[in-house]
């Protein structure tokens, strides 16, 4: 009894870090963790899922799961939830996870809780913590339905190996009559996509206060000096200054570097949830009332366009190219 079902995601032949976080945390919430893996490369990831505590795996290998958005997976996952009646279903808080959880919710009439940063068990129910209003308010929700669906934000839990064996595997066929829905015609990888933003020890992020796209060059320079990565607020991504791959925040990446340097970012709610877990925060902004200063360990009221070049010079003087 006490089954936790985790919806796994696969990237480049490996389970995503978030998937391993969910499987690991699932062990604290139930007696058994089952995973459902719908991907042509599903088999390749089963050892890693087992090693993190999954004892059962439900696998679908059709290419439809990569070629189509949401609909094929929703049918199979819904049927599985209906059959297993897990105590809880954990979904990765990604674009795909969100679309899938929404559809399963609608098919089965089950509630979906989004943006979880903590999930604990309380008797027969689960307590789900989310941060709202730019992570200034902590909300705790208690589930009161069977098999609640919970979307978890990345880096909320730690992935820990349990040393478990390969999970017992069952293949789930995709019903022939399943509507496939929207089809992916091609995937375009942006050449400037910043690698390592989520892993970087230092993140240098820019917002509207950088005035224009060309000024991101100084942020790239500073990030190079510090061995870090460049991030951005949604406002400048929406404005087309930098690609979406650089976006930090609610709909972008969640980062928890040792140092986060926010340059010309006022600190909109949706940005703060993506970076407030950083160990140390430095903020540079013209507006002394900017919400970012409530989170910062070192705040500088000033023009990022002056302070950042001066910082680059200062670091150069200290021997950093």
């Amino acid at each position: 009894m006490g089954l936790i079902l985790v919806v796994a995601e696969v990237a480049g032949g490996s389970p995503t870090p978030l998937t391993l976080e969910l499987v690991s945390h699932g062990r604290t919430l139930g007696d058994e963790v089952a995973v459902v893996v719908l991907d042509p490369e599903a088999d390749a990831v089963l050892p890693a899922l087992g090693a993190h505590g999954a004892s059962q795996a439900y696998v679908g290998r059709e290419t439809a799961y990569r070629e189509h958005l949401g609909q094929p997976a929703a049918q199979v996952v819904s049927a599985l939830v209906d059959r297993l009646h897990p105590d809880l279903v954990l979904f990765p808080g990604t674009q795909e996870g969100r679309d899938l959880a929404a559809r399963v919710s609608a098919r089965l009439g089950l509630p979906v809780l989004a943006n979880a940063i903590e999930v604990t068990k309380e008797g027969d129910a689960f307590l789900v913590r989310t941060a709202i209003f730019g992570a200034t308010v902590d909300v705790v929700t208690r589930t009161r339905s069977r098999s609640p669906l919970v979307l978890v934000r990345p880096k909320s839990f730690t992935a820990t190996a349990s040393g478990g064996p390969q999970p017992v595997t069952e293949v789930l066929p995709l019903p022939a009559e399943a509507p496939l829905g929207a089809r992916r015609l091609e995937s375009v990888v942006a050449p400037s996509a910043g690698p390592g933003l989520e892993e970087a020890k230092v993140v240098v992020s820019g917002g509207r206060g950088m005035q224009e796209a060309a000024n991101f060059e100084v942020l790239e320079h500073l990030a190079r000096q510090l061995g870090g990565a460049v991030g951005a607020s949604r406002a400048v991504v929406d404005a087309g200054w930098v690609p979406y791959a650089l976006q930090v925040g609610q709909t972008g990446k969640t980062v928890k570097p040792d140092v986060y340097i926010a340059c010309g970012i006022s600190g909109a709610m949706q940005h703060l949830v993506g970076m407030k877990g950083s160990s140390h925060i430095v903020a540079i902004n013209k507006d002394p009332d900017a919400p970012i200063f409530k989170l910062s360990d070192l705040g500088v009221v000033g023009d990022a366009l002056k302070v950042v070049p001066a910082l680059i010079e200062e670091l150069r003087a200290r021997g950093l190219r």
Partner: protein
Amino acid sequence: MGQLHHGAIGFPLRRTRLAPGSLAIIRLRFDGPDRPVRWGQFTQFREGTPGVKVAVFVKQIPDPTGVGRLDPLTHLLVRDGTELVLDPGDANGVEAALRVVEASGGEVVAITMGGERAAEVLRKAMAMGAGSAIHVADDRLRGSDALATARVLAAAVARSGCELVVAGTESTDGYTGTVPAAVAELLGWPALTFAKVLEVDSGTVRIQRQTPAGHDVVEAPLPAVVTVTGAINEPRYPSLRGIMAAKSKPLEQLSLDDLGVPPDEVGLAAAGQEVISAAPAPERAAGELIEDDGSAARRIADYLAELKVI
């Protein structure tokens, strides 16, 4: 739902009884089409292509530049005493819907669910160019969760006869982001989410979907649901003419009974979860705040050295 929406005096009004206790006013239009008809569209209509009927979801939220508050007892969002605005993400949705119709012909229907004041965002959407609006308002909807909201909106879309739904990716107050895909599932439609480019042509929707690595090109036949990101467009400001025209556009108010949605499937009691606490998040230790007098760069460098980053 006895609320009447009054416009300028001097135009004839026609009242249509929808259901006991529910009234809507439909204004007769004497000012002709409120949208300039271009030759291309005219030709299309003549050939029997009616264009696309597009529903756009809009939500009234507390001004996101202000500080949000939750009622300490009910844990519901406090809307009184807060400036209420059209969700900025939905303004992108309205703009995207208008551009589809401007390119292919058809009409835009703005749809919202909410209390009496939520009609304000419908007027805003109509001032931007939507042709009509549907307001689902019912006291029994208070406290509805994402699934209940999706049930109501799906029923409203089905009733409207729209074949394309455009919505923001997520609301700027709740960030749940599951309503559009749940609506798609309830209607049995595909959902094309996170669109930064949207094109509709000959019954096919094609988007560029933002991805962590770049973008995917995704396609589906109509009917379909599309969610858009802030990158898709720059929403237009309503013109004075648009604001005046919006006052006489049809705004239909509907109850749960009108939509045939069972009351036990919505509202606080139907929600599959309950909020048990909402408290200020633990604050980070108060940081140091300095004014840049030319020495800030040195201070930051010293701080980075303290942290052994350099």
